């Protein structure tokens, strides 16, 4: 079934706040295969962003185990793109994309790659533009290009299209699928949008509300092509999404709950 890019077992992240210890997520098992687009779906506050930040090395687990590709200095070999582009307003598009070249960690990356990447990603005409001159969709493409320049085998996208209008979002989704075919990437995509998860994801994992593990994982590779299966999967996911969104978020992490809710449609057991 292909080798794994990420394996998380019994993972938890607990924040100590003024009101006690608040789990962002707990009892989480997750496996992401190399080369797949793995969509993470879940109600607000279930810990999706926190999980992605941990995968990117910006935060750490409180408990559990995480295996993923790493650089020689121990840093996860993962690039992250956030909901907003966070481009540096004083640099042109080309210089923003080239930001990684200014860091010693990427001295192996060839400078010529910037032009190549701008070309491949359809951003060549924008090379000399300033971020303030870009539309939201263009800015987000530049942000993705900036992360891809340093060639992380793992690309983490935290609701990258959520702030865009529906038409632009559709455009960028298709763009991402094309880019992903061109470059050999493993992508973890966080989204609120069931349709986006099905459309972009090879597999979809639904995280449980109340920060307690996952409901299950659905294989959606063939779903797009078969409208009946699509409708059924969509229906199933939406129903479970709604159900888990209503679960109260208890503050104290209890015993680990089952991580595989077993959807009617080919839910893939964690292996």
């Amino acid at each position, binding site marked *: 079934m292909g080798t794994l890019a990420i394996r998380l077992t019994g993972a938890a992240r607990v924040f100590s706040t003024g009101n006690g210890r608040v789990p962002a997520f707990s009892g989480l098992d997750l496996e992401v295969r190399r080369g797949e687009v793995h969509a993470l779906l879940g109600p607000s506050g279930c810990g999706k962003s926190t999980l992605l*930040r941990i995968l*990117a*090395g*910006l*935060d750490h687990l409180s408990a559990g185990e995480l295996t993923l590709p790493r*650089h020689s200095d121990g*840093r996860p070999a*993962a*690039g*992250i793109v*956030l909901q*907003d582009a*966070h481009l*540096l*307003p*004083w640099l042109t598009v080309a210089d923003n994309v080239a*930001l*990684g070249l*200014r*860091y*010693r*960690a*990427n001295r192996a990356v060839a400078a010529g790659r910037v032009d190549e990447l701008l070309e491949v990603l359809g951003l060549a005409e924008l090379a000399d533009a*300033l*971020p*303030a001159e870009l539309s939201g969709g263009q800015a987000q493409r530049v*942000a993705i290009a*900036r*992360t891809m320049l*340093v060639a992380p085998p793992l690309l983490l996208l935290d609701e990258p299209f959520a702030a865009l209008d529906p038409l632009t979002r559709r455009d960028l989704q298709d763009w991402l699928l094309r880019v992903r075919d061109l470059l050999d990437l493993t992508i973890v995509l966080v989204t609120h949008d069931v349709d986006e998860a099905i459309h972009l994801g090879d597999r979809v994992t639904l995280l449980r509300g109340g920060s307690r593990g996952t409901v299950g994982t659905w294989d959606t590779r063939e779903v797009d092509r078969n409208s009946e299966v699509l409708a059924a999967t969509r229906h199933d996911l939406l129903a479970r999404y709604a159900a888990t969104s209503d679960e109260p978020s208890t503050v104290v992490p209890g015993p680990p709950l089952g991580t595989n809710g077993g959807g009617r449609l080919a839910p893939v057991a964690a292996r």
Partner: protein
Amino acid sequence: MSDRPPAWRVRAARVGRASTGLLVALLLWWLVTDVVAAPGDMLARFSPLTAAPAIVALFLDGAGLVHVSVTLERLLAGIAIATLVGVPVGVAVGLSRRLADYTGALFQFLRMVSPLAWTPIAIVLLGVGDLPVVFLVAVAAVWPVILGAAAGVHALDPGWLQIATTLGASRRERLTTIVLPGIRAHLATGLRVALGTAWIVIVPAEMLGVDSGLGYAILDARDRLRYDELMGVVLVIGLLGFALDGVAQRTSARQRRRRHTRPAAPDAAIEVIEAPVDLARTR
């Protein structure tokens, strides 16, 4: 057909009003010294009618220019020192909450002490001459620079630092590629405030033990009972300060345009240092 007047007209009207204000002030000055005051009065000696020719004479014989250039040199030296000290301190305080906690009260205290209060100490330690003047200017200018740099760090987008981190930037690399370029707009505002404060401080500072500069020129004119010259120097001080602020304002406005960030109000730069950005653990 817009009912709003074109931009050049709005600007011309503004300039017109500003000029009117200045002219009225000039007229009042003249009224007080030449109409209200009796001819033999002390007040009559400060008349604009004598100040104008006196200042022309001062510049024609070269002394005026020397005073101006000496003052500007001391000003720039003081500002340069304030920048060299203030930027690293401001950035450090902006980045470290702990450091901000340690220094917050201390800085507020020091900032409230008029730089001129340090004069005797400056003279004891640095002797008489340029050094104490430059020192006092630097002391006056360093606070707005520190606060501007710290405010700039607080205004940084945490996303920039996080992205840089995931791109493999070291702490130092984040400092040079994100923090320093990212605070330029706030720093420009801080420097503008610093320049204004320094300009106010440098004149009295030059009244202490130096024999050149605009502050000295005022005392010198007084000692020679040349009140016409004294008023002329006051005018030059005001004009130069006006011009300096104009230049600083333009520079900082250009910085703001370049960064497409909201203008940093001088008041914002004066805010108490808090909520630092953590470079090490970019949350």
